[in-house]
């Protein structure tokens, strides 16, 4: 392997494009990580089945469009609702029994993901599927020398919208106050007649719903197949954990990771970029396990 093959020299225009691509990647990772952020940040649950919630969202979109002829945009809210419901069931049936055992939720949800993947494969087969996106999302927007697919702009916009909605929900709504009080002190919250079990259930459902809607969006960009969740979940985890389970932590981390990945892979290649990124995250977590924004606190 010669050095030149491995290392792409710097050039301004493609480098700027790489930065734009980094934003797009960041928005994809952010959308994938958003639901996980809520679930991890408020409940401390490591949901390994998150990737499969994304996959379910994509398959729901595909089924709605392929069999029932629904337009793609309409599929987004529907898959939010359905996956949120599935998430709620998972929380009811499994996760709520494991709140005091966070490592066990990690493992149990891995079991859930195996069941989901194989069930989908049995029902729909393993073939990759695709969906049709509306005309206005299938073209390219040209700004100067930059060519940006409109679908990526759409996802970028949606990422911001979803972050905004989630922020409003968590920090401005009555429900958000309940969530945060349960987070901080379940006993005290109970004395204010907050049903913490209901709050947990709804929070998990909301997180799952966000995964569902992200699956719907990815179905427009990428392929749908039973294993697709695995391709998102690891990155999503790293975003969430590095971001400290905070909404804006995830926002920042996704941005930084997306840009770093894009720049590394511009200079070298995808695979190597991934290696460098993973190692950097491990080192970062060693020095700031609490995430990028959260102030350091004395342990125990």
């Amino acid at each position, binding site marked *: 392997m010669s050095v030149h093959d491995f290392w792409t020299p710097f050039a301004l225009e493609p480098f700027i494009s790489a930065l734009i691509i980094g934003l797009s990647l960041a928005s994809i990772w952010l959308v994938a990580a958003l639901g996980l952020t809520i679930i991890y940040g408020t409940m401390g649950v490591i949901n390994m089945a998150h990737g499969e919630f994304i996959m379910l969202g994509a398959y729901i979109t595909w089924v709605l469009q392929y069999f029932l002829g629904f337009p793609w945009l309409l599929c987004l809210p529907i898959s939010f609702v359905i996956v949120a419901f599935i998430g709620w069931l998972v929380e009811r049936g499994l996760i709520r029994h494991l709140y005091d055992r966070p490592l066990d939720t990690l493992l149990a949800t891995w079991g859930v993901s195996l069941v989901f993947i194989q069930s989908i494969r049995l029902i729909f087969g393993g073939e*990759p599927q695709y969906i049709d996106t509306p005309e206005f999302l299938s073209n390219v927007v040209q700004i100067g020398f930059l*060519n940006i697919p409109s679908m990526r702009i759409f996802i970028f916009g949606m990422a911001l919208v979803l972050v905004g909605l989630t922020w409003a929900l968590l920090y401005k709504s009555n429900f958000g106050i309940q969530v945060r009080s349960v987070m901080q002190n379940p006993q005290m919250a109970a004395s204010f007649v907050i049903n913490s079990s209901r709050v947990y259930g709804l929070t998990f459902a909301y997180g799952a719903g966000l995964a569902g809607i992200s699956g719907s969006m990815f179905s427009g960009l990428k392929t749908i197949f039973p294993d697709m969740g695995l391709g998102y979940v690891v990155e999503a985890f790293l975003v969430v954990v590095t971001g400290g389970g905070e909404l804006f932590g995830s926002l920042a981390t996704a941005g930084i990771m997306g840009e770093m990945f894009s720049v590394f892979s511009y200079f070298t290649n*995808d695979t190597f970029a991934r290696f460098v990124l993973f190692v950097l995250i491990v080192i970062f977590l060693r020095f700031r396990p609490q995430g990028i924004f959260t102030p350091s606190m004395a342990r125990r």
Partner: protein
Amino acid sequence: MRVSRRNFVKGAAVGAAGVAAAFPQLYIKDHGQAWGAKPWIYKDGNVKVGLLWSQTGNLSVVENDSTQVSLFAIDKLNAEGGIAGKQIEPVVVDAKSDIKVYSEKMTQLILRDRVATVHGSYTSASRRAVMPIIMKWNHLYYYPTCYEGRECMQNIINTGPLANQHSYDLVPYMVKNFGPKVYLVGSNYIWPKESNKNVKVWLERAGGEVVGEDYVPLGGSEFSPVFNKIRQQEPDWIMSTVVGDSDIALHRQFLQEGFKSDKMPIAALTTGEIETAAMGHEAGAGHFLSAPYFQDLKNPTNEWFVDAYLSSQYGGGGVTHYNMEETYLGILIWKKGVERALEEAGGDWEAITPRMIRDVSGNWNGQGPVGLSDEESPEGKVWIDPDNFNIWLKPKIGQCGSNGQFTIVKEAPEHVGPDPFAIYPERGVCKADGLHKPDGTIQKDVL
């Protein structure tokens, strides 16, 4: 406790020594000798053949069809009377898309089921995982998928195109019709890299040039960094050796990025009917594929093959693509090899060894290598190379239409021969008995 532990250790040591003394065969006997000496085909039994593909897991998308078409071929042969009156008995195993299981199932097929031959696997990784087992038992493997070549093993017959055959016609055709500048995109593993080395050689002859080269992880679905570089380099066409799910993502994102297949088409080596169906017809339309076989090939044998297969109990997949056809050829070619082996063994079934089937498939008794005629092979006449046991074939170039089917735009006028070391002449020439190196030595089992 102190005493009992010491006693335990002492007791265990004495026990182990006792066992060792009592059963010397446990560690002395070479089980393999006796095992290999038993016949592989019995006088009054069937001819057993192993089918090693995945029916479950992510590889099942491709490999399940391979199993089905093999069963179809075996049914066809059995209906025609089998091999010299003996019925063929398929032993189907499920490799579960897991490398560990491929290796385990291969030992099972050879050692427990005692099949005479194994057909199977789609990926090079699974082929390489099972080859040490095949070689150890001097068994025989039919591998039906295109691969990179540069191997020279004495226990395998390949019925798919090698890297040197695959793009042989494609590159000059694309250069002539679209221009000299090409961007190479591939999945990040050996076959794409090896294929692209061949592409570069043909490019040089055709007067083309490589303006960029990129590899994405297997299963990767993010092509925007690659398209960023492509947009910058403005190639005339893209050479794709991206496989599987990634290939579908590549074509879909090609559309989303606003590229047009009539301006800058993708010339691929694996984007067949399965992939164009999965990516959506508009994403496949206009792109090119080089393969020895297309479902839409217009000849009586293929028309029979497509009809018979799709209407059989095995044709649920709805397509016949190049890999399935190569698998089908493998079974047919194998049957001819067994017939020759029977003759070589003087009619004694029990004297046939898997290795003998391979040896007689080459240049045997002046009859030339085994092959299939236009009437037998859907892709037209093919035969086994008597030296390296890959296949002689005519590469064809198809352009994908808006229905997901390919129209043949060019067929090689002559058969193109396989040469696993085409671009490594310094390494030697692959012959039936091994790699003949330039220094005159012969190296066996070059893996």
